């Protein structure tokens, strides 16, 4: 089966991805379809009752439904499971399928008998062909089968494509564009995606008409879910950016002015005296879009490497009547 395996790689600003997860296996533009063991897919015995099949399907549908599932191949598994159920839930279809499956597992048994109840197993038709026929008879035109295509009668607009787009914070801050290569039912295509300036995480970009081509109707849309790559300095929540800033104990205690990086360049930050570890300072408007940049102070001690170093600290200790655990001693004896 001509499925492009899922892969992701970055190469000179071009992001590769395979949209295969969104394609129904039967909808591939191929001549033969690999036989699938629906019982294995559902994790049940071939002798399972109709009740068992229904109950198992419903459980798996909940588990793999892409909107609610955490599983890695949710979309593909969901379509697999749905396809299995469509075939097995009908008594007649199931009987046909069972015979096919029996042949695939024990070809000799049928060869001797000259055929089965439903199928002729001679040299002319392979099991794969007959499997494809069976699926076609259930699902109609195999291409574009979508178990969810029950939203009412509309013009056969092409399907939408959903994809994640990973961008850097710098790209989000300044805006920009990115070349995206997609594998679709009709082959690969390359699109230039404009990244709006100041876009926040979790936003979805809609590229009208860049989805699957429709059969006679319009093309669907391409949806890109924006996600940020991990950044060496910043963490993002919404449109606010956070920077953890190491400072020396005396800088926090005495206060000072330091230069800190922001996405828009370095700026001066006033650290008030008597700042503590974890203190959060705000640089208004220095986040994404209208967001801010928060600077969280991280007080770091210098290492003691000599007697003089030690003496300096001992002197500090002597100078301050300071018990940071006062509240602990009293309350919890």
């Amino acid at each position: 089966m001509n499925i492009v395996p899922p892969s992701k790689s970055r190469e000179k600003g071009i992001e590769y991805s395979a949209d295969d997860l969104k394609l129904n296996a039967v909808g591939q533009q191929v001549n033969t379809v690999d036989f699938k063991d629906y019982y294995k897919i559902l994790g049940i015995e071939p002798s399972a009752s109709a009740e068992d099949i229904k109950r198992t399907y419903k459980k798996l549908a909940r588990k793999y439904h892409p909107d609610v599932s955490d599983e890695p191949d949710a979309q593909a598994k969901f379509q697999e499971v749905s396809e299995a159920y469509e075939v097995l839930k009908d008594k007649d279809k199931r009987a046909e399928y069972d015979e096919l499956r029996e042949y695939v597992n024990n070809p000799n048994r049928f060869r001797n008998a000259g055929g089965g109840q439903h199928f002729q197993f001679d040299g002319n038709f392979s099991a794969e062909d007959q499997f494809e026929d069976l699926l076609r008879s259930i699902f109609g035109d195999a291409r574009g089968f979508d178990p969810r295509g029950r939203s009412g009668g509309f013009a056969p607009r092409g399907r939408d494509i959903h994809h994640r787009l990973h961008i850097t914070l710098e790209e989000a801050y300044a805006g920009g564009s990115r070349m995206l290569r997609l594998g679709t039912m009709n082959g690969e295509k390359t699109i230039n995606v404009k990244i709006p300036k100041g876009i926040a995480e979790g936003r979805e970009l809609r590229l009208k008409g860049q989805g699957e081509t429709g059969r006679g109707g319009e093309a669907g849309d391409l949806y890109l879910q924006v996600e940020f790559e991990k950044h060496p300095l910043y963490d993002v929540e919404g449109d606010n950016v956070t920077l953890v800033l190491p400072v020396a104990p005396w800088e926090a205690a005495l206060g000072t002015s330091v230069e800190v990086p922001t996405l828009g360049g370095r700026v001066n930050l006033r650290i008030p005296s008597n700042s503590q570890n974890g203190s959060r300072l705000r640089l208004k408007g220095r986040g994404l879009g209208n967001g801010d940049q928060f600077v969280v102070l991280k007080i770091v001690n210098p290492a003691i490497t000599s007697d003089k170093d030690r003496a300096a600290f001992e002197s500090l200790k002597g100078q301050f009547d300071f018990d940071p655990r006062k509240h602990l001693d009293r309350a919890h004896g």
Partner: protein
Amino acid sequence: MADERFTLTEFCQVARVDADFVEELVGLGIIEPRYEAGYAYFTQREASRCRKALRLQNDLELNLHGVALALELMEANTRLRRRVAYLSRVMDRLRDS
């Protein structure tokens, strides 16, 4: 960054649903039109919710009350996960030398 605005007709096209379904969702507060200068419009956020609602209804056979609840929980879940991921990363930075 301005969000694209859809009239009801456009919205039905984009979200791939019919007006009756939209009306049902609006009736239950699952999506809400916005208003400006007297005219109503929808945005992509509503379209996304609408599509999810349809899928949940069809695939998991939830009634719309179930769908409404599921959507709210799913969105809360996503917000919480993002928060946890963010806090976790900041904590890591505070801890690492």
